[in-house]
């Protein structure tokens, strides 16, 4: 392995001590990232903007600070990409739309301020589904992001560029957002780790909304341990976000190596493992559960006959909230929206007030069922998505054609409804060589146990360490 390849595919946890010791400089990391980005863009189309000069300036400052003994922590000198719905002062936030072209942010989102304070280097904005409203990851305005494992296939979305860039070894960390699965679906299809924290755990201030009662911001990384490092920077109360929680914030790293002994893993007996789910996916997740059982976890089968309603409730809340978010912009700029996103927003005009309130009440009912069911377990294990990765061609809308990918969010959306922490990591590959994702979902505000389970599984396997096969190796 060359030094460049080593840097491109290292995790933050691997890079940080080398940065701290001076063995690798932030300037070298950023230059290596910029080289990899130049090599793979625009074929992958993961970035909307790359801030090469300012990233090198930040890296140089980080290098000087670290050599002077002012090391800020594991993210110091590490390049981070931001889904282009997150405000960075002086930079455009387009949401992947034509409507917001030229919309320059006047301040940083709270998560950006936190990253800057941790010494992270902001390297650019990531491609996404228009206004984050779609699961396949396609965007007719900004161009489709290609999956590094097979560039004819989708990445899923809406944090499509965020997932592709990490998977392709361009950068080790990106931030995404998740309202129906937009962190976890692309993480699963691109073979990386993606954490949707508990609703309210990470601030959404300065982040374009889609459905305010279900929007989450979360990290996308090579490993679970890196998600924990990011959570140590991002989690906490923010008075600028009305939904921000005041729950105490633990150190997400401290218990991450505690292994599986003593943990009870719930396996739903309904919905997630039925005949309609791809058999290779079911088989891989079952093998993962067996591996965890053989390494100290106790497996508990859980009947959940009501759980199929979770995604419906997720959509029932999302449609009218998204319409409300977009009402004014849609009235003024309807022609600038893509057809599919415009139509999804127009659905919401036909939802009655009582149906929206029913959906919000059903959400409380559903969360209660979930809490009751999980009383005797620490986490749930399920597949992240129910289908194998479709091609871009099959997912591209066309008159008279039903586009593929409609089922992608059936599993992830369940846990946006409940707001529980939910994490996707790789647990195998299909016979066609595409990554398979496993979802670990915990009790509200117990990201620590979710991360502990994910980290323990990664220590037992090497699925997360394989580089994608459909892109050139590092120069």
């Amino acid at each position: 392995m060359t030094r460049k390849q080593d840097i491109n595919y290292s995790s933050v946890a691997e890079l940080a001590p080398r940065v701290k010791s001076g063995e690798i400089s932030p300037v070298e990391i950023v230059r290596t990232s910029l080289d990899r980005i130049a090599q793979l863009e625009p074929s992958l189309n993961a970035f909307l903007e790359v801030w090469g000069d300012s990233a090198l300036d930040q890296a140089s400052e980080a290098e000087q600070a670290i050599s002077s003994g002012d090391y800020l922590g594991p993210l110091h000198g590490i390049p981070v990409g931001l889904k282009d719905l997150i405000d960075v002062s002086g930079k455009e936030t387009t949401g992947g739309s034509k409507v917001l072209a030229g919309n320059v942010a006047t301040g940083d989102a709270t998560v950006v301020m936190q990253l800057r304070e941790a010494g992270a280097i902001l390297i650019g904005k990531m491609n996404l589904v228009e206004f984050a409203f779609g699961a396949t990851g396609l965007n007719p305005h900004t161009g489709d992001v290609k999956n590094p494992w097979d560039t004819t296939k989708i990445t899923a979305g809406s944090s499509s560029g965020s997932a592709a860039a990490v998977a392709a070894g361009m950068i080790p960390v990106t931030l995404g957002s998740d309202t129906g699965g937009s962190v976890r679906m692309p993480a699963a299809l691109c073979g990386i780790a993606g954490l949707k924290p508990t609703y309210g755990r990470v601030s959404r201030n300065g982040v374009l909304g889609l459905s305010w009662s279900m929007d989450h911001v979360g990290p996308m990384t090579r490993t679970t341990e890196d998600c924990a490092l990011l959570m140590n920077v991002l989690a906490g109360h923010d008075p600028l976000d009305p939904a921000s929680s005041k729950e105490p914030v633990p150190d997400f790293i401290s218990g991450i190596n505690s292994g599986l002994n003593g943990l009870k893993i719930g396996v739903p007996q309904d919905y997630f493992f039925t005949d309609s789910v791809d058999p290779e996916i079911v088989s891989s997740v079952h093998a993962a559960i067996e591996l965890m059982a053989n390494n100290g976890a106790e497996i508990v089968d859980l009947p959940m006959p009501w759980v199929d309603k979770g995604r419906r409730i997720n959509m029932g809340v999302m449609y009218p909230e998204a319409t409300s978010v977009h009402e004014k912009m849609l009235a003024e700029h309807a022609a600038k929206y893509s057809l599919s996103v415009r139509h999804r927003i127009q659905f919401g005009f036909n939802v009655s007030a009582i149906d929206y309130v029913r959906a919000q009440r059903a959400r409380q009912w559903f969360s209660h069922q979930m809490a009751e069911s999980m009383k005797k377990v620490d986490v749930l294990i399920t597949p992240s998505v129910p289908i194998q990765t479709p091609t871009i061609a099959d997912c591209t809308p066309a008159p008279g054609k039903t586009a593929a990918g409609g089922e992608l969010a059936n599993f992830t959306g369940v846990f946006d409804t409940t707001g529980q922490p939910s994490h996707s990591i790789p647990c195998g590959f299909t016979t066609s060589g595409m990554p398979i994702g496993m979802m670990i979902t915990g009790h509200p505000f117990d990201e620590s146990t979710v991360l502990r389970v994910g980290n323990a599984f990664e220590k037992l396997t090497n699925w997360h360490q394989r580089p994608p096969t459909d892109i050139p190796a590092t120069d």
Partner: protein
Amino acid sequence: MANNPKQISEQARDNRLVISSDDAAAVTEMMADVAATYSTIREIDTTGFEAAGTFVPTPSKRESD
């Protein structure tokens, strides 16, 4: 819930949004799935559960003179 292009257009206009006949036709086609979503939700007995996101007032006081 609207289930034909005319109703879709009328409801959009009621909400101060004018949509094309093509849009109305396309939305009508997709409304079946939306209708199924709310049909599922209506079947849930939510007795005893208040809506999520209940309004909570923000504390405030008179500013000092």
